[in-house]
């Protein structure tokens, strides 16, 4: 039989028929269908038992309770803890993204020693023993040379055990230079100290206030404990509580408020004094408080009455005099009116005069330590460690003036003045700081006047970062001793910003440390041990957990269970408290700082013709601008009117833009006395003409590709403006020029 063409054809046909009758084509089709639906590179998350761990968020000073959902040994989601006194189940955009920080590429995987030049980002992994030995060697040498006071620490935390351990370490070692990062907390604490004579934080009973007068506070931008403020805001909407927002730009808070008063920038305090004028003139103040519990009113009243008539206020602030009068009346007539200040998120302290003026408004309506008012919340009391026994070196070091000048004659009330450090370091030779620790802070990014900062930085020979993340400061350090990140460690959170009750939150290790990191508390203890006595003697604990145990005693167990402790029935004095000032009364014009109240306004840096506009930074809940930079999820939500590609948009009123010849989206050069940057222009009807609004929180150089290189760092264009009375940084803007390119 010959295989000819026809036979071959019939063979093929037979084959085709047979194949069709076999499962091959059908099964293959089905398998290919399944194959094409499940690509091997698409991850398949593993399942497992679902558990929940309650802990405390440490990404901002808000002190929120969060619940982490775990599947097996993976953390998969962070949610707000229902029933938590601060946030009751709510959570903010940053808190939600914590797992991207935990698992993300910005983590510092192990102790790193700088391999190249500073900031070049070349690192060498070293062991913890080697890393600690390096620090010890350096510190021992300094101490030997009686230069212990040239060790400084910039810390984002000071009230809890870790902050206090660090401060204690510095004390035992012999340095007074424990410097907390600045915020409106500095100004509020000073205000309470001066006017009420207490060392306390300001707490706001926002839930019970029925009239909110906000002097630029970003109630919806991250001021205070953000979630708590959001919840309060919603409650206000439900109850019909009136909110008046005073600021030159239509922020989210302004947009949501019942009345937005676009005030000339930097003149908020004048408006506060103008309101006081009306209240006093019309005798609308609450006499039962003012008469019995306050002092200095007469003198203050005289000044206010003579200097700040509604007409004068109008001339300065641009707010119509009838508006001022009407506002003063409705404020004073409310049952629980509450005046707030601290611009935006409150990341810059501000002028003490302004804070005192606003606080005086609260006092005029008697709303101090009262329902719906401002409460003086005492600092944490649970840390009762024995006094440090200092040796001669330590004592001598502690006698040295602080590098930032806080507590010295000129800055007698200030506790921390970080903004002064760059200047001081650059001024002296050799540098007054020989070694610098940075804990839970990112000053290389957050401090303004970058040019000066870089100069100062170069003069500090030894910089150690404790950061869990490769932030700007870590990137420009010599050694990184990475801390466990907050979901991997125990730490007490001693404070929730703006919360009106004493509160402790406990951060708990939700999962095992993902990298070769070490708790900063343990690092401090090990450093102390290695330095030997007398430093070692100040730290009688085996490890950090032992310290925590010792500090809290039995309370730790309950704290572990509930995750927080709050003094629910805290009442700052029943009825009206006795103030701890010299007079025992609320001081409208504290003796120590007599003139400050009337020097409320701070002028921005720069001169008019060269810089015709004023640059004001503005905060947004979607842009973290502190120690933590935006994780990928959060940066994803930033609108394209703020960031497009790597270009940052500044907000300008259409008329202002037109005068310069700029249209929507056009590139422009933004120059200030401190620097310049290429930006693009977003026309916004909601910003006062003559101003340029710049979003904060962008322009990072470190972190990962999701954040680095995007936009412009607003801090770099700004400079500190020292408040004459307090020494605090009171900058709210800077003169600027915007030109076409």
């Amino acid at each position: 039989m010959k295989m000819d063409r026809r036979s071959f054809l019939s063979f093929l046909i037979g084959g085709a028929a047979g194949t069709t009758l076999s499962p091959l084509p059908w099964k293959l089709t089905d398998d290919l269908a399944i194959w094409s639906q499940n690509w091997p590179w698409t991850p398949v998350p593993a399942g497992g038992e679902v558990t929940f761990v309650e802990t405390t968020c440490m990404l901002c000073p808000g002190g929120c309770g969060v619940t982490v959902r775990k599947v097996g040994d993976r953390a998969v989601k962070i949610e707000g803890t229902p029933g938590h006194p601060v946030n009751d189940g709510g959570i903010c955009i940053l808190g939600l993204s914590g797992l991207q920080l935990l698992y993300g590429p910005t983590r510092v995987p192990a102790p790193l020693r700088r391999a190249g030049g500073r900031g070049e980002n070349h690192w060498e992994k070293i062991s913890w023993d080697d890393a600690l030995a390096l620090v010890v060697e350096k510190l021992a040498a300094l101490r030997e040379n009686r230069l212990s006071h040239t060790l400084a620490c910039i810390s984002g935390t000071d009230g809890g055990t870790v902050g206090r351990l660090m401060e204690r370490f510095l004390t035992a070692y012999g340095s007074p230079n424990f410097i907390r990062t600045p915020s409106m907390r500095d100004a509020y604490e000073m205000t309470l100290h001066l006017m009420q004579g207490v060392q306390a934080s300001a707490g706001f009973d926002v839930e019970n206030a029925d009239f909110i007068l906000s002097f630029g506070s970003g109630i919806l931008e991250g001021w205070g404990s953000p979630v708590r403020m959001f919840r309060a805001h919603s409650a206000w909407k439900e109850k019909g509580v009136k909110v008046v927002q005073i600021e030159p730009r239509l922020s989210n808070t302004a947009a949501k408020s019942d009345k937005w008063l676009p005030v000339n920038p930097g003149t908020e305090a004048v408006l506060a004094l103008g309101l006081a004028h009306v209240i006093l003139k019309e005798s609308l103040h609450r006499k039962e408080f003012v008469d019995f519990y306050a002092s200095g009113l007469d003198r203050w009243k005289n000044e206010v009455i003579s200097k700040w008539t509604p007409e004068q206020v109008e001339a300065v602030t641009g707010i119509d005099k009838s508006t001022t009068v009407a506002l003063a009346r409705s404020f004073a007539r409310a049952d629980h009116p509450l005046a707030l200040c601290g611009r935006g998120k409150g990341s810059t302290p501000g002028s003490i005069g302004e804070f005192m003026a606003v606080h005086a408004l609260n006092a005029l309506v008697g709303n101090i330590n009262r329902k719906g008012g401002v409460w003086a919340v005492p600092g944490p009391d649970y840390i009762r460690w024995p006094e440090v026994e200092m040796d001669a070196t330590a004592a001598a070091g502690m006698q040295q003036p602080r590098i930032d000048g806080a507590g010295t004659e000129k800055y007698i009330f200030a506790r921390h003045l970080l903004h002064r450090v760059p200047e001081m370091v650059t001024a002296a030779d050799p540098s007054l700081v020989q070694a610098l620790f940075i804990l839970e802070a990112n000053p290389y990014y957050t401090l303004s006047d970058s040019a000066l900062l870089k100069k100062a930085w170069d003069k500090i020979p030894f910089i150690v970062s404790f950061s869990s993340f490769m932030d700007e400061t870590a990137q420009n350090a010599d050694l990184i001793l990475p801390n466990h990140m907050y979901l991997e460690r125990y730490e007490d959170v001693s404070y929730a910003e703006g919360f009106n009750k004493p509160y402790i939150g406990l951060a708990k290790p939700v999962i095992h440390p993902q990298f070769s990191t070490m708790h900063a508390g343990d690092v401090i203890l090990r450093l102390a041990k290695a330095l030997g006595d007398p430093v070692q003697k100040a730290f009688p604990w085996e490890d950090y957990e032992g310290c925590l145990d010792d500090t809290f005693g039995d309370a730790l167990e309950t704290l572990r269970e509930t995750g927080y402790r709050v003094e629910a029935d805290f009442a700052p004095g029943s009825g009206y408290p006795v103030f701890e000032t010299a007079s025992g009364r609320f001081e409208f014009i504290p003796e120590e700082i007599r003139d400050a109240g009337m020097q409320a306004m701070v002028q921005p840096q720069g001169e008019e013709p060269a810089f015709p506009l004023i640059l004001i930074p503005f905060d947004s809940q979607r842009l973290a601008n502190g120690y933590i930079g935006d994780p990928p999820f959060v940066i994803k939500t930033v609108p394209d009117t703020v960031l497009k590609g790597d270009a940052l948009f500044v907000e300008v009123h259409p008329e202002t833009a037109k005068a310069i010849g700029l249209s929507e989206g056009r590139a422009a050069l933004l120059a200030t006395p401190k620097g310049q940057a290429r930006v693009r222009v977003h026309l916004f009807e909601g910003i006062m003409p003559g101003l340029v609004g710049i979003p904060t929180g962008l322009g990072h150089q470190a972190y990962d590709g999701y954040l680095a290189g995007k936009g412009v760092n607003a801090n770099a264009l700004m400079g500190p403006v020292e408040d004459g009375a307090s020494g605090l940084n009171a900058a709210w803007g800077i003169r600027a020029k915007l030109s076409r390119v």
Partner: protein
Amino acid sequence: MSTNDDKAKADALTDTGKQPEQDKPEKGNGASGSILFFFLVGLIASLLVGWVVFPELLYSKKKQPIDFNHALHVDMVDEGCESCHFFREDGSFSGVPELAQCIECHEEAQTDHPEEIKFVTQYVEKYREVPWLVYSRQPNCVFFSHAAHVRLAEMDCVTCHGPIGESTHSRIYEENRITGLSRDIWGRNIAGIKRNSWDRMKMDDCAECHAEAATKTASEGEAPIEGFFNNIIRIAFPGSLSGRKSSVQTQNEACFVCHK
């Protein structure tokens, strides 16, 4: 040539013109015999390939890391399958036990059976999870609620998983080289024919059972004769008569019921 041509033409008039039919009648019987022969050769060869060779090639055979004796374990526990394959409080199903569960009994070897020794030395002592190969593993797009089936519908494990509890050895795991899934999903039978409810685990099998259940629900109180006709209609036009038409598009249950 022309006569052949005409004939071909005539033949082809009844057909739109397929080659073989057209060509076949042209040669004598011997030729057609050889054509038939080759046709049969092709047919048989391809049938062999399709039914025998193909399944051999399609699946790779893997051994379970430990030869597990289900029957032995079932005998020793009180609550049957759920002793080890249990529900968690939140309604999720634990599936294949984790090492921690095994350790509750097997911290040390209880017998000198080589498989148990292997288990203890290689996994328990090293605290390493056993990489079990799961016969019923579905692709990631599938959502399956054990709670709905076992707790709500009170189905037996056997209905879908078969009498695996009676096995004394672990079967060879046959992995589909294309899909990466077990052969049990399509079923042992390469033609996809099933005799028992647990022979296959494909979407159609889920659908079949769901349609039945729906019919049962729908036909409660229905005259038997109606049920009979409905069944015929249902077989002829699948999906046309299912009891619940929660999906607007498919007139079946909605896709999200089983997919994620």
